[in-house]
């Protein structure tokens, strides 16, 4: 087997080869590093590499494999989004304000990947503080879509999605606050999953909006995403919102197929404004596949869909404005420490350290929480959040899972939406409802439109990851549409 081939494999296939001894974890690292050296100057998925970690972790994996030990991800090369702390590895949330920051601890989700035997290749690019849908808000550089380098990979976890799509990592972790895993997965033609709020510990995640953020996997197959999710799931004493649910719950009966399942198609999502005809056609074809497999496709309604974006753009900025208050130039990161007084230290540090989208959201959130506006904006948005949650509760009385497009459009050209924030926000119109309601959701490849990947989203009731995975797996198997590795150049 040539080194190039090793970057095309799924986790399942790789674990078999490692067990047989026909490849080593060190071989896998070499193959991925060679591919990264060739392709990443074009794709720009990574911000930094972690050679010390990969050498140590691959050597340890090879030692354990020789001893006959098995672990769910032993020897598998992974990439980590730049919002997840890794002890001693520069972690910046795509921002200048955290330049040089080396966390003194490791995020629980990352630690669990390491404990399962994963080998870290590097840190992936993202929109600054995970705010964006194209990775163009990174303060370092934009990442490119591996299927068309003139287009965006989606965001905010665009680096993680692009790395997996380009064969520059076998798995990656991302975070999803309004669609930041599912939308880039759709635009890059890979599998991406956002878990139920509370499924995965957020300890060590640089917070954006704490009531919405969740960590989840990118992979090139539904099985690989499911295994990774089970590895990172579960109760953690270090996150008070992590739920006491068994990690293996996410895998229960997920190979059962869709025969007899009721899959709801919300008409507000199906007919969403701005949906491209090619995307709609791919979704129609996917619904046919699911119907052929014995699923019953039912019409459902999410009547408050038109208010979701508005509620989200109060709640998420409000939470971000308080979370980002900690970046004050005192304890870490960029600092104007020689300013004449403490107020000037704050003003100047934050003026230099934050990019325009972050400033926009901090101001919007501060405004919505400020005296005289709290009831009209923040409280109102929280009430509308209740209505949106109820919409989903009612829809799930009529169906087992909800299916739709993940994104109304395929990947768009760089620069197409950067001048108009609202047009960028609309990228998440089909995904943010899942965050407001705390639902698990997965995006899987379902064909192409004009040669660019289209994603199928499956949303399930809270704690129903296995239901979403079951639909996704049945579709993947029946459609024979697999996440492929982009050739790039």
């Amino acid at each position, binding site marked *: 087997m040539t080194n190039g081939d090793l970057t095309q494999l799924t986790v399942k296939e790789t674990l078999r080869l490692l067990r047989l001894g026909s490849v080593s974890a060190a071989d896998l690292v070499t193959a991925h590093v060679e591919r990264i050296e060739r392709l990443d100057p074009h794709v720009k998925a990574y911000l930094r590499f972690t050679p010390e970690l990969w050498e140590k972790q691959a050597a340890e994996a090879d030692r354990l494999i020789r001893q006959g030990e098995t672990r769910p991800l032993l020897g598998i090369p992974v990439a980590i989004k730049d919002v997840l702390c890794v002890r001693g590895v520069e972690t910046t949330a795509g921002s200048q304000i955290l330049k040089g920051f080396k966390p003194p601890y490791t995020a629980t989700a990352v630690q669990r990947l390491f404990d399962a035997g994963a080998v870290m290749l590097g840190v992936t690019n993202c929109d600054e503080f995970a705010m964006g849908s194209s990775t163009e808000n990174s303060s370092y550089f934009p990442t490119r879509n591996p299927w068309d380098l003139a287009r965006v990979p989606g965001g905010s976890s665009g680096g993680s999605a692009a790395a997996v799509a380009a064969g520059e990592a076998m798995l990656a972790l991302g975070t999803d606050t309004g669609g930041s895993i599912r939308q880039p997965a759709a635009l890059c033609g890979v599998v991406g999953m956002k878990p139920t709020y509370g499924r995965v510990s957020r300890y060590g995640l640089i917070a954006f909006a704490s009531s919405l953020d969740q960590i989840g996997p990118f992979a090139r197959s539904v099985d690989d995403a499911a295994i990774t999710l089970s590895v990172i799931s579960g109760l953690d004493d270090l996150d008070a919102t992590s739920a006491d649910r068994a990690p293996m719950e996410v895998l229960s009966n997920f190979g059962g197929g869709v025969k007899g399942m009721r899959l709801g198609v919300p008409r507000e999502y199906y007919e969403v404004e701005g949906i491209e005809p090619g995307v709609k056609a791919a979704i129609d074809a996917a619904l046919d596949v699911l119907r052929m497999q014995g699923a019953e496709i039912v019409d459902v309604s999410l009547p408050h869909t038109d208010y979701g974006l508005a509620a989200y753009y109060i709640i998420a900025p409000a939470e971000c404005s308080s979370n980002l208050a900690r970046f004050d130039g005192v304890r870490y*990161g960029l600092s104007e420490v020689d300013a004449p007084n403490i107020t000037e230290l704050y003003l100047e540090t934050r003026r230099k350290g934050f990019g325009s989208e972050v400033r926009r959201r901090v101001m919007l959130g501060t405004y919505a929480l400020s005296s005289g506006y709290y009831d009209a904006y923040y409280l*109102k948005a929280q*009430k509308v*959040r209740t209505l949106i949650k109820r919409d989903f509760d009612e829809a799930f009385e009529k169906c087992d899972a909800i299916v739709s497009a993940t994104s109304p459009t395929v990947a768009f050209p760089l620069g197409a939406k950067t001048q108009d924030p*609202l047009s960028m926000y609309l990228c998440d119109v089909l995904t943010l409802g899942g965050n407001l309601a705390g639902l698990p959701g997965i995006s899987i490849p379902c064909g192409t439109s004009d040669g660019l990947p289209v994603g199928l989203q499956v949303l399930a009731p*809270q704690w129903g990851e296995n239901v979403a995975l079951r639909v996704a797996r049945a579709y993947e198997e029946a459609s024979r549409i697999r996440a492929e590795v982009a050739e790039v150049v």
Partner: protein
Amino acid sequence: MPLSKDEVRHVAMLARLGVEPGDEEYYAEQLSGILEHIDRLQQLDTGDIPPTAQVVEISSRLREDDPRPSLTQEEALANAPAAVNGMFRVPSIQEEA
């Protein structure tokens, strides 16, 4: 509801965000556009609807109040932009009398 330049200046100060020349106008225009979309929330009658701050039912758990290891002073200060005598150094907080 459109946002004025004065309101942008006020909000930026509340958030301790330094503004550059021209910023007020730029953000007043952009934030007004976003708020115009957000104003559709006012169409909904939410009189009887309780607010949702947290969507998943998770009951608070308390750990045992036992001492456990934490960061050392050296680790806590490792990322400090400026440290002196084991403390974070900041500019003067009080004006001289």
